[in-house]
């Protein structure tokens, strides 16, 4: 019996919280008091304003009926919503009553053995919905640039002292071993799920952290809502991808999905595959990919690990979204490819079906003038933990080497960055040592191919010219010479505009073999090195000296903008739920007077 190797990496953590926790040194602090922001959730309909008073403890009562009634009275107290943006001292006492009621409810749910009654379920779910499901406040900059979680400081939830406890209570309620989803599902339905997914767009990372765990638990307990939940998440992704590119919670949703996918049974259902190909993979298109890339890659890798035959359609669609003009996204795409190759290395049978399309793209990246892209392309099979990829390459060297060789040779000879030249050269040496016979063959056909490509190109240009001459000759243009009387006037003038040469005079922009600008016959192959490959070439000799370059594990991330010290403090105080420190945090919370 062959046991399937499973995708064993730990799921990546979502969100800003992580960043604040892991590199606190990276965060610049704003001067105190410079943050002019209104941090408020909306207290538009400030619920039933009953007057709050201290009630006796639930545990102080004796009969079960009395306890149930008190539990529900306390829950009702918690339905009162307070406006935390309004500094009204008269509210201090009722706010504290609600906070203490919540704390007591948490404790009751954790410590009491008595089962929950249907009335209690109903009251709890109404209370949670009243407290949590609210219209989200406007984003930082609703009319200007799109919200970029990398650059902007989050708006923290003003009512957090209460909201956090509500989340905490609900989590413990759902996690309790006395919780019965069969009864709860009468009160917790599709609408609840929909509203919960809506607030994933919240800008407060602490809230999204709680939501993530809550959604995960609810998904686990309510089997009948799973299908619905996945569908709604799919709608969120599709709207994000194809409509507004505007959502704060994508990475958290992906993190939840990561563990959901983990639980999918084999063979995968058609709807799951559709989810992957039509909702997950297109997420690569978004401008904000860097925000949720690790989570997305994790999900995709999980799918491919379950069914390696999916690698081909996934890669084909990934490559068709290739970010041609965005080099930092290209690096992320290369990482996705690397991750997929790692999974495939566990299922080598499927490698043959994808090697050609993947290595063509890698060859293109190696020849990129952007050195980080080239570096990532070159290091895909040589970084420490991916020997398995190198193994695959070795086995299929006769297919892969002819694809890579032109780029490697070209880069080793003429890339502007010395380290990249050196890396290329050492990889060429590596290939020589792997299979010198295949290497010889490749060199043999290399020059031939260059010659053929050149001829093909000339032929193509000629055909276009013939067609255009016959149909619309006015489209053809003559090469224009550089006018030699370009203005030599100094440009630092206040009164006279410097004469700028008009673009149609610029021969560099204009020379397109005389063809109109919308016909571009690629010449990248033509500019590759034409001479014969020689390992002993003196050009290469100096490269041997260069130390093997450091491979940059981390993409150089955008420096975060200065943040408000209060915000940083609030985020650092938040203990991520899956840290295993929740009970510790709980004790801190319990003894913590929030108004001080």
């Amino acid at each position, binding site marked *: 019996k062959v046991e399937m190797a499973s995708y064993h990496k730990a799921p990546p953590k979502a969100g800003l919280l992580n960043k604040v926790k892991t590199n606190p040194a990276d965060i610049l602090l704003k001067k105190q008091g410079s943050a002019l922001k*209104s941090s408020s959730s*909306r*207290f*538009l*309909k400030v619920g039933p304003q009953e007057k709050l008073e201290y009630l006796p403890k639930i545990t102080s009562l004796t009969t079960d009926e009395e306890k149930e009634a008190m539990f529900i009275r306390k829950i009702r107290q918690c339905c009162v919503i307070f406006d935390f943006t309004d500094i009204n001292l008269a509210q201090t006492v009722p706010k504290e009553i609600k906070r203490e009621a919540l704390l007591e409810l948490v404790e009751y749910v954790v410590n009491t053995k008595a089962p929950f009654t249907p009335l209690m379920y109903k009251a709890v779910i109404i209370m949670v919905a009243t407290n949590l499901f609210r*219209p989200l*406040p*406007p984003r930082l900059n*609703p009319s200007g640039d799109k919200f970029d979680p990398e650059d902007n400081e989050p708006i923290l939830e003003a009512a957090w002292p209460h909201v956090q406890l509500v989340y905490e209570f609900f989590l413990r309620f759902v996690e309790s071993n006395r919780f019965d989803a069969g009864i709860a599902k009468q009160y917790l339905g599709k*609408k609840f799920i*929909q509203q919960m997914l809506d607030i994933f767009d919240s800008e407060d990372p602490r809230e999204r952290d709680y939501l993530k765990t809550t959604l995960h638990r609810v998904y686990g307990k309510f089997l009948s809502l799973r299908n619905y939940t996945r569908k709604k998440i799919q*709608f969120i992704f*599709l*709207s994000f991808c*194809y*409509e*507004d590119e505007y959502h704060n919670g994508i990475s958290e949703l992906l993190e939840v999905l990561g563990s959901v996918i983990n639980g999918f049974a084999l063979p995968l259902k058609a709807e799951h595959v559709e989810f992957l190909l*039509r909702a997950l993979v*297109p997420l690569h298109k978004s401008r904000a990919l860097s925000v949720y890339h690790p989570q997305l890659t994790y999900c995709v890798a999980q799918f491919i690990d379950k069914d390696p035959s999916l690698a081909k359609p996934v890669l084909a669609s990934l490559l*068709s979204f290739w970010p041609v003009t965005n080099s930092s996204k290209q690096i992320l795409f290369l990482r996705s490819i690397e991750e997929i190759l790692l999974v495939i290395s566990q299922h080598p049978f499927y490698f043959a079906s994808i090697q050609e399309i993947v290595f063509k793209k890698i060859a293109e990246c190696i020849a990129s003038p952007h050195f980080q892209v080239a570096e990532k392309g070159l290091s895909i099979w040589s970084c420490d933990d991916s020997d398995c990829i190198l193994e695959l390459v070795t086995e299929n060297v006769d297919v892969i080497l002819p694809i890579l060789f032109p780029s490697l040779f070209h880069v080793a000879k003429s890339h502007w960055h010395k380290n990249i030249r050196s890396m290329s050269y050492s990889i060429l040496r590596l290939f020589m040592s792997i299979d010198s016979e295949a290497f010889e063959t490749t060199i043999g056909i290399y020059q031939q191919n260059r010659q053929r490509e050149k001829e093909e190109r000339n032929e*193509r240009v000629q*055909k*276009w010219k013939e*067609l*255009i001459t*016959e*149909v*619309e000759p006015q489209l053809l243009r003559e090469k224009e010479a550089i006018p030699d009387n370009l203005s030599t*006037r*100094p440009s*630092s*003038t*206040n*009164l*006279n505009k410097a004469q700028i040469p008009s673009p149609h005079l610029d021969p560099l922009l204009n020379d397109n073999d005389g063809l*109109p600008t*919308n*016909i*571009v*016959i*690629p010449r990248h192959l033509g500019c590759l090195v034409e001479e014969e490959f020689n390992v002993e070439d003196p050009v290469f000799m100096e490269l041997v000296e260069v130390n093997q370059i450091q491979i940059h594990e981390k993409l150089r991330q955008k420096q975060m903008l200065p943040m408000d010290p209060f915000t940083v403090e609030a985020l650092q105080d938040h203990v991520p739920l899956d840290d295993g420190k929740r009970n510790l945090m709980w004790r801190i919370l319990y003894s913590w007077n929030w108004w001080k």
Partner: protein
Amino acid sequence: FKYCIAMDVLLPELQHIDLQIRLNAVSNIGLFAKKLGKEETLKSLLPALQILLSDEDEILAALAEQISSFPDHIGTDNVVPLLELLEPLCKAEETVVRNKATASIEAICKFFTDEQIQTSFVPMLKRLASEEWFTPKSSACRIFYIAFSRSPSEVQSDLISIYKTLCSDETPMVRRAAATHLKSLIPFAPVSMMEEQILDCVKSFDNDEQDSVRLLVVDIAIAIAKTLTEQNAAGLNKSIVEPLITACCQDKSWRVRFMVGTKFAELASALGEEMTKDVLLPFFCGLLKDAEAEVRMVAAEQISRVAELLPLETVISEILPILKTLSVDEAQNVREAMAADIMLLAKQFGTQGTNDHLLDLFLHLLKDDVAEVRLNVIGKLDQVTSIIGIEHISTHLIPAIVELAEDQQWRVRQAVIAFMPRLAKQLDIQYFNDKLLPLCVGWLSDSVFRIREKAAENLMNLVSVLGVEYYTLSIHPQLSKITKSSNYLYRMVALFAAAKLAPILPVEVVKTQLTEELVLVLVDDVTANVRLNVGASLDVILPLLEGEPEFVASKIQPALKKLGEDKDMDVKAYAAVPKVSS
């Protein structure tokens, strides 16, 4: 045989492995069509394009775009086959492709006969609308109006029932598309349909769980109101449009209220004065007092346009008190928006009303902490000066302006400068000279370059308002004083001013006062930058003195010669620019 050759070239290109080569072929498909001629294009080229339909998005987008120009190649009476290519493109995942495909459909449908619409277009539309995935359904929503506007009434009611199912589709993307494009159907719907089927569609949006769908109801309501008014059924506005607007204004999501806010003036004018007063006014006041600053802001931008539709006494009793609270709103964006808009109210209020009710607000906003607020008031001040009346200007506005002339923000100073010529025209010259001329002169030696530059330009504007004599008497002495300033930056200002003023002054003044007393005195300046600008100013002045060759020869040429021998390279370069006509 000519088609054979063209197709032989084209086919391998369309299937080439390199995307760029395929793209070349697709985006120049017109060239091939031209070569093949109408008949062959229809017979061989169109079917050949089918192979592209499984290609990458970039190719699909190019193809979708190219199809709109095909009527030129195959003749306008034979465009129906193009739908075969466009239908699959309407189902593409990528939004760009779908948008281009639907745009092409809109373009070619112009050439359809009404019969072709029924036999070809409507069946395609029905197919798209009944697909499973959201993309074809969204595309169907966008092109629905084409079929709807060109169908007889029995087909129309069939179509609207299909549209209704789209409106209550499970996917929010389809519902959003349906809501966005419903307004393009409305102008073609008869009143009876409006009351029933159309209203049913809107109602399904009204209760939508997604605020991004609900907010689209605002546009639909406006379209309904406009159409009903056009069809002389404005009476129905109350029963149809009012409940929709009520729901939007009271929505719990700020986005929906924000949307009503941005469209309020349009809505009010579509519903007419009576409904604005009876129905909309309380909602508008509500939006101006909304809990969300964003909503207050967009509502504040609409104040003057909404007020126009209301009787003045209502504006004074209902809106004016809110303006007073808005002028001290905690959010600066709100104050900015209202500062820009309430200046336009003055027209409606008239002289008396403005002085009684608005002037205090203006003065208050002029003292706002935030520069943008002050700026917005000053920027529109010229629209109210004629209404306020000269007496109030001098007693109330001028002191405020004098204060702002030294504002810390140079943009505010710049706005004040722009306002000067207007004031000069209205005020008594003596009064202007006493109060404001010193300011105009003071700006010439401002610490910010932009202000000095604007101050020089301002002198030109003042002279064109007040005349040449004013220049000689009041401005020239000031400028010539500046040429003796110890700071070279200020000396340069005199040169800028000379260059600006030269074109509007008579030759005699240009000769003696500008050229001799301002420009040429600085030829020997110690600072190279000043000498450089002498050359630059002469470049402007020289063409104006074409009729005075003697003066040019005796005064200007020697100066240029001297500059041409300067030790500074840039000065030499500038001296070489002015061309003396011989």
